[in-house]
């Protein structure tokens, strides 16, 4: 199973990016193989509108079924939900911390957007 974690860096020791739509990038982590890859999100950083929707598309195209990020807005939430992606919120810490906490079951799953669009 693949997990996407928003990050401001490029590897597992990088900090979590608390933004989703305009996150710098994503680490896509495979829980079965332990492999990970980095996906750049630069184009969405510049998007005039719909950044959350496009970020959702990006991670869904990468085949993830779980997203860990700091905050998620209403349109990103709607898109991810339609794609069956579960969203867990975590602010602060590294990508590695997020993976460990997710595996331990200590992250809370969100059932809706926790911020307004353009917060």
């Amino acid at each position, binding site marked *: 199973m693949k997990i996407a974690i928003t990050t401001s860096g490029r590897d597992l020791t990088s900090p979590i990016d608390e933004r989703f739509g305009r996150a710098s990038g994503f680490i896509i982590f495979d829980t079965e193989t332990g492999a990970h890859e980095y996906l750049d999100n630069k184009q969405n950083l510049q998007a005039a509108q719909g950044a959350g929707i496009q970020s959702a598309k990006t991670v869904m195209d990468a085949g993830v079924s779980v997203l860990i990020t700091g905050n998620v807005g209403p349109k990103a939430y*709607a*898109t991810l939900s339609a794609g069956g992606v579960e969203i867990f919120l975590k602010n602060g810490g590294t990508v590695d911390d997020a993976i460990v906490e997710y595996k331990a079951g200590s992250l809370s799953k969100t059932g809706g957007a926790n911020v307004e669009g353009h917060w």
Partner: protein
Amino acid sequence: MNIAIASGKGGTGKTTVAMALATCYARNSLSVALLDCDVEEPNVNLFLKAGIDTTEPVSVLIPEVDEPSCNGCGECERICAFNAIVLVRAKPLLFAEMCHSCGGCYHVCPERAIKEIGKEIGFIESGTRDGIAYAGGRLNIGEAMSPPLIREVKRRHSDSGTRIIDSPPGTSCPAVEAVKDSDFVVLVTEPTPFGLNDLNLAAGAVRALGIPFGVVVNRADIGGDSFTAEYAKRGYDIIASIPHSREIAEGYSRGDCVSYIVERFRAEIENIASYAEHQARRNARV
């Protein structure tokens, strides 16, 4: 002939000047309309107090997908420049509030699975008072797309000889939509650093649109002389200066400042009116 009143910065006195001009033209027996295009915060009729004869809803077209007919090809998503329609698990997901009503998805759908339906975004009220024909738009709360409503307000009272367009502040799409196609723009400013900064932005936008403009300095005595030099340096044509006055502020808060201004600053208002009319006519001819 269209004369737009704009400002860049909010609260400089656009509506007050627009009302004063309309009153002045009406007193000179000109056929005049006053169009409130600040549809997110319309306030003209707080002062004009025209009885409303008609209220019309305004709608835009948005797509509606017939899911059984959709084969998930994704053409609609590819053409949408605004991320308003995306394919998730081969099904289109629509974000109506982001749609700019271009109709692209409707036209490219090879399965004819998309039809266009109306979505109400606001309404327009029209009426008349004291020889001034009035129309004003009001955008529904939560609605993001004001330009289609502004465009519709500008179609009202097309038979009036002089149409005064009270524009929204700023220099983004709503302000540009209100000002464009005008024959002359009156930029209302105040002599403060904020006022000057936003005047410069507004002047840049109006110049880019190729519309002649003049500047009215409101509360002209509050900021000192340094601004006069700034206006000259940028080649602004100062049509009139209206000093700060407690009477105007008190009248404004009661909603009846206009008659006071038109009497007390008759020369200034008539000057703006005749200058704007002259410039607009000259521009409309060429």
